């Protein structure tokens, strides 16, 4: 950053965060002034996002900068630190939030949910607290930022708090966020060690310097996995995700899924790779197993959803699972001291973080546009929107291809890197692990292929076919600001897909700071076209050549057909094997499209079917797909908690004399103890 001497990147970032806070507070001055908030404040927030991304990009290669803020409690100042890992996630936050904020500016409507000014405050506080999570360099600042992130996002999720199911979703979200926060707090407690250093022990610098024995290191690792896993949606703590994402307004869902889940990944990486130095090999295997389970679970459930935002939420669970699979590989490789492979796996994780932020935010915003155009979230009532909303449809197609992990867009690159990392696992010097982990690659491949199924369903049912409802003919395309936001995120997907060498060069700064090595030097020798992380003979991929090749063949085929034959077209009705009667009801609904999967993966689901009888006057067909975890894990826990509270409840009689008696008895007991 070409900054004035003494004004570091960290200062710039802090001032940008302060601008976000100021924008939020500015919203309170005219909470009902719709134009002021949507046309001035949100675009301003987007500009700050871009600026943040630029500064963070400049800070990637720089050495770590630290700062002590005289905030917080007396003798407990906030420590901040900007290193490559923070910079990368700040870049992600800035880049994704720029698109989402500009979209939100066009998305806001009058008279929906919370007052726009209040929502603006919550939204920008949420952004600022995420930035502070990434900057925090002590447990105290981290927890304060983490909790403000959880609270602001809770209020954003419950924007439409008049609906009971949204209140319920918000409650589950808040509950799991706090259970997870306890895990993180305890993890920092363990990392701090015995606290011989006094108050200063809570800084990350101190924790980094500690050397824990295996037991305490494992304890800290387990608590971090629990705490950050809860925030990220790792199995079995995923239940809040498919509830909270659909409940929130679409830009907020995009932020939750695209950015906030990544802060959990950031925290986990920070603890495992930075604060704890020597991972044990079974940590990696544990994370890998959990990640695989999460991935398969997420994608199998995504395939049977009929609410478009729930479908995307389950797909986010799948992607989080993939990230944890990558982290698991990283930890395993690092435990065995295989630096080059650690770097490869870590690069795939970081790359996938960026990718998921781009394409999942894009897809969530697309659902927002569809929702506004049609007032319909259920896939079974949409259809044919590509004619009414061409902009949204074509940009959604990019997001769908990226999300399905197809070349030449970005989802494929990180998947490719992850599979390459898997191919090296037989080199591990451990007897069983080196054979079992390659089999895990089979599960990853299955999940990737299923993601294609999910995305075809998502795009095909919403945008293709014929409109399933009369009212869809009034649907309108997204407004100009919404289009800008969508285009920004779609272009990120394309750029991340086409220029992997450039991106990996930048990721090198992060991997170097965490593991001491990078992929870049070997790759740069091959030029910027060829992505060959290990060796060009070993594996290579050239997205640009790939794209140009396909484009050239398409153009050549088109021109040659026109040249030698003709381009005549006659418009007519659909053929459909000559069946005379065609209604829109005969197309596959969301349930119909996922029927094969329901059959193949039946044990995964808790299915309730209502089938019509032969003589029903009004036949009804209903399938309810539920999650086993509710019944296996959450309801028993809830029942035990309820039982416990009922046993304590007899204390609460509602009569003041009894309460006075309690106080009196307590007093007497205490006096007795002191006397004794």
């Amino acid at each position, binding site marked *: 950053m070409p900054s004035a001497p003494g004004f570091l990147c960290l200062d710039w970032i802090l001032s940008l965060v302060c601008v976000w806070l100021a924008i939020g507070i500015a919203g309170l001055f005219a909470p009902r002034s719709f134009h002021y908030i949507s046309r001035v404040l949100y675009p301003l927030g987007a500009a700050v996002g871009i600026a943040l991304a630029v500064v963070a990009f400049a800070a990637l290669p720089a050495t770590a900068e630290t700062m002590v803020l005289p905030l917080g409690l007396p003798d407990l100042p906030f420590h901040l630190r900007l290193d490559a890992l923070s910079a990368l996630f700040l870049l992600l936050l800035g880049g994704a939030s720029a698109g989402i904020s500009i979209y939100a500016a066009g998305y806001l409507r009058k008279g929906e949910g919370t007052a726009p000014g209040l929502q603006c405050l919550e939204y920008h506080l949420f952004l600022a607290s995420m930035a502070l999570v990434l900057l925090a360099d002590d447990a105290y600042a981290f927890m304060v930022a983490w909790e403000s992130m959880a609270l602001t996002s809770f209020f954003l999720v419950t924007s439409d708090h008049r609906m009971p199911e949204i209140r319920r979703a918000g409650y589950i979200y808040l509950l799991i966020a706090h259970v997870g926060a306890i895990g993180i707090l305890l993890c920092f407690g363990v990392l701090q060690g015995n606290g011989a250093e006094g108050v200063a022990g809570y800084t990350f610098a101190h924790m980094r310097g500690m050397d824990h024995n295996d037991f305490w290191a494992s304890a800290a690792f387990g608590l971090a996995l629990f705490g950050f896993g809860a925030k990220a949606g790792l199995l079995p703590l995923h239940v809040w995700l498919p509830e909270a994402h659909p409940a929130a307004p679409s830009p907020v869902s995009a932020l939750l899924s695209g950015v906030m889940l990544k802060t959990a990944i950031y925290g986990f990486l920070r603890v495992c790779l930075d604060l704890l130095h020597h991972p044990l090999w079974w940590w990696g295997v544990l994370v890998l197993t959990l990640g695989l389970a999460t991935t398969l679970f997420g994608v199998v459930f995504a395939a049977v959803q009929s609410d478009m935002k729930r479908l995307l939420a389950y797909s986010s669970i799948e992607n989080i699972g993939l990230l944890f699979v990558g982290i698991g590989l990283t930890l395993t490789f690092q435990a065995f001291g295989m630096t080059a492979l650690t770097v490869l796996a870590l690069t795939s994780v970081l790359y996938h973080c960026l990718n998921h932020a781009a394409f999942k935010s894009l897809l969530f915003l697309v659902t927002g546009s569809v929702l506004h155009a049609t007032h319909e979230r259920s896939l079974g009532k949409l259809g*044919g929107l*590509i*004619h009414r909303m061409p902009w949204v449809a074509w940009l959604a*197609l990019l997001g769908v*291809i990226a999300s*399905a992990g*197809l*070349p030449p867009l970005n989802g*494929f690159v990180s998947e490719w890197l992850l*599979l*390459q990392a898997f191919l090296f696992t*037989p080199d591990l010097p451990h007897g069983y692990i080196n054979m079992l982990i*390659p*089999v895990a690659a*089979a599960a990853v*491949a299955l999940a*990737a*292929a299923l993601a*294609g*199924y999910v995305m*075809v*369903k998502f795009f*095909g*049912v919403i945008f*293709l076919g*014929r409109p399933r409802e009369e009212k869809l003919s009034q649907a309108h395309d997204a407004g100009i600001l919404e289009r800008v936001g969508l285009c920004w995120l779609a272009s990120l997907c394309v750029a991340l897909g086409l220029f992997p060498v450039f991106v990996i060069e930048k990721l090198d700064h992060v991997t170097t700071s965490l593991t001491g090595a990078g992929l870049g030097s070997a790759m740069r020798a091959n030029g910027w076209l060829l992505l060959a992380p290990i060796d060009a003979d*070993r*594996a290579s*991929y*050239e997205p640009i*050549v*790939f794209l140009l090749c*396909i*484009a050239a*063949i*398409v153009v050549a*085929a*088109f021109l040659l*057909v026109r040249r030698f*034959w*003709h381009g*005549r*077209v*006659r*418009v*007519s*009705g*659909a*053929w*459909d*094997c000559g069946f005379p009667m*065609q209604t829109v009801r*005969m*197309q*596959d609904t969301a349930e*119909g*499209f996922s029927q094969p*999967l329901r*059959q*193949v993966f039946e044990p995964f689901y808790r299915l309730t079917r209502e089938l019509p009888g032969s003589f029903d006057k009004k036949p009804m067909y209903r399938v309810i797909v539920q999650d086993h975890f509710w019944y296996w894990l959450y309801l028993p826990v809830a029942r035990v908690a309820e039982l416990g509270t009922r046993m304590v409840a007899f204390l609460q009689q509602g009569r003041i004399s009894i309460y006075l008696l309690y106080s009196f008895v307590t007093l007497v007991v205490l006096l007795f103890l002191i006397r004794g």
Partner: protein
Amino acid sequence: MNSASSLLLQFLELVTALVAAPLLTGWVNQCRAWFGNRSAPPLLQFYRQLAKLFEKEVVLAGNASSLFRAAPYLIFACMALASMIVPTLSTDLPFGPAADAIALVGIFALARVFIALAGMDIGTAFGSLGARREMLIGFLAEPALLMVFFTASLISHSTSLSTIVETLAHREFVIYPSLAFAGVAFTMVALAENARIPVDNPTTHLELTMIHEAMILEYSGRHLALIEWAAALKLYAYSCLGLALFFPWGIPEGTGLASLWVALPSLAFKLLIGGFLLAAIETVSAKLRIFRAPEFLGTAFMLAVLGMLVHLLLEKAT
């Protein structure tokens, strides 16, 4: 490396694919007819069909979107690219590094997604039925194919197709159990992916059984021609891939054009045998119910994983 001659070779490989793919399909159809004791269509029948389709005008459903019209070109391009990067005439191809085995699976998946989306575009009952079934077959076949490649990659320490073929060609002629498992799995996947019996039937238009044909019902004229050609290219690419992985002998490693005298006849010979065997498999097997297909492909997946495990357990030291 002589880049001009290798570029020429790359171009030749594309042209060979475009020319030979319809011939291969014609050959398989001929063999099928002979097995069924019918008089066979001429070898060039597929060309005549293509010429006829290109000549005809396109009859387009009224609510077709531009995605529907673009899809045939895209699918054709994907399949042409796939047959370009599979080493058939030489292992030293300039476009070889553009996509390795994993990217090849990605190309097939890309084409599949587009054909499924095109099937859903008109909004007919058959289109979405075909799309749903195709994606079902796809998500089962894709991981199995990837596992076959994984086994080959573990043997050759590379995912680059050229390196895999070179390594496998230089090994002594012994039957490797891992490759045998992988070969069976690959054959099963190839049958499913190319809409062949026992998973699908390329000649049926019976609504209960069709998969591939159901998706492309609405296509006509040049669009249909491109899709049919792409299907032939896919069969060709899969056949060449199988030959390259399991019978790699005869694929020259140099870029010299002189080596074509070896490469072309050996390719033609291997394809003739392969096509004959494919027709034989199709004749002796019965079409499965659609919900037996997951079992069929699940077996392929298990075999592929087994092949990989066998390699890791038994052959790793070699």
